[in-house]
């Protein structure tokens, strides 16, 4: 069977999305944009100083027809984006402040995305994660009802036979450090939306704790149950349940023993939500070190549309994978 990433690549090709690259002059970024664009997985939009981008692309031997190049110094198009942006409801920046921010290609790309000229903004090789998150919150904004940006990762664990085969989505292992109950609810809700967009799964999301349905007591568990309550109230359409220990969440036999009530999730969860980043980060390392898992992500979630932050040391192959993943999420979010 082909790997999950191969399947995602195939999915991307069926409905290529417009991905804006505000760090287009970066050599690795341009290569990733070019190769994914040339092979038809995405429509790459390079945002920056057009002359510089063209010169570099030519020097690197790329066929310029693969790219759409947007010159941030060209006034007419910029003014159109600004006018469309300030006409949107609930946007933060006004004309003048936005115009100034858009001197930075990162903000320019996101403004394009906000007005529908791009589907994804892909950055993070020159900008820090903090830069990307700030620009995203300022320009793209958070989804209604969502109180924090967070992330999930997708683990492909050899030998694991869960409800989605060897795959398991887990979060947040990277972004939201110490979520309060409302934020933890946001993480769970966003995670369900993310796996549905990317993988077409029917999410079954477990809020993980050291206790199963009141088997333990204390403030650490109270936070999780409070989050569960908020998540269920906000999104009754989603199967989010807990609090479950990890085994009760993913092992049917354990769930049968410990969960003495109806649950769409217990024993067959395909999404695990950690109570905080201490757990989340450690858990991912455990899955990788002892489970020899391939982990994909972190995928940012909670924004009104898809923003992707790649790691600054990422090799081109990893950047390409993340570009294609974010494009498939964007296509999925439109359905």
């Amino acid at each position, binding site marked *: 069977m082909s790997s999950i990433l191969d399947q995602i690549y195939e999915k991307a090709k069926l409905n290529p999305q417009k991905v804006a690259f505000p760090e287009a002059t970066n050599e690795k970024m341009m290569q990733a944009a070019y190769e994914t664009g040339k092979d038809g997985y995405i429509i790459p939009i390079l945002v920056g100083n057009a002359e510089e981008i063209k010169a570099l692309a030519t020097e690197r031997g790329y066929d310029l027809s693969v790219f759409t190049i947007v010159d941030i110094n060209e006034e007419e198009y910029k003014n159109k984006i600004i006018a469309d942006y300030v006409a949107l409801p609930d946007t*933060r*920046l*006004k004309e*003048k*402040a936005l115009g*100034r*921010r858009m001197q930075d290609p990162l903000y320019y790309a996101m403004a394009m995305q906000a007005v529908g000229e791009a589907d994804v903004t892909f950055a993070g090789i020159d900008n820090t994660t*903090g830069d990307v998150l*700030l620009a995203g*919150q*300022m320009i793209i904004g*958070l989804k209604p009802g969502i*109180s*924090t940006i967070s992330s999930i990762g997708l683990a492909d664990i050899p030998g694991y036979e869960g409800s989605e085969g060897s795959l398991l989505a887990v979060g947040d292992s990277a972004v939201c450090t110490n979520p309060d109950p409302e*934020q933890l609810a946001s993480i769970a809700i966003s995670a369900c939306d993310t796996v549905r967009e990317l993988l077409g799964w029917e999410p079954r999301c477990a809020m993980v704790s050291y206790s199963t349905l009141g088997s333990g007591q204390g403030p650490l568990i109270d936070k999780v149950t409070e989050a569960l309550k908020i998540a269920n109230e906000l999104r009754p359409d989603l199967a989010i349940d807990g609090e479950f220990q990890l085994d009760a969440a993913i092992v049917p036999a354990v769930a049968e023993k410990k969960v003495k009530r109806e649950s769409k999730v217990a024993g067959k969860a395909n999404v695990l939500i950690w109570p905080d980043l201490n757990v989340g980060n450690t858990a991912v390392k455990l899955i990788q070190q002892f489970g020899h898992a391939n982990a994909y992500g972190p995928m940012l979630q909670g924004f009104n549309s898809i923003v992707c932050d790649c790691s600054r040391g990422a090799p081109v192959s990893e950047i390409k994978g993340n570009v294609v993943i974010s494009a498939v999420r964007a296509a999925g979010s439109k359905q």
Partner: protein
Amino acid sequence: MDRKELEAKVIELVAMSYNKAEGEVTLETSFKDDLKGASVQMVALVAEIENELDAMVALQDASACATVKDLVDKVEEEL
């Protein structure tokens, strides 16, 4: 804009971003203890300061402010 006007404006923007009545926010109001906001509110505040006062305060500088007065100082530096 003199210092008094600036203080009044920043208080107004803080109150708006954190969904408080203006009377609830003073120069001594602590972001951490009194407003208990998440980074989302701080982002909104930084954006409002850009819109209304034409000053770009970096998010990390704004987040480092203990009180509203500290933020007024930061904005004043940027004006």
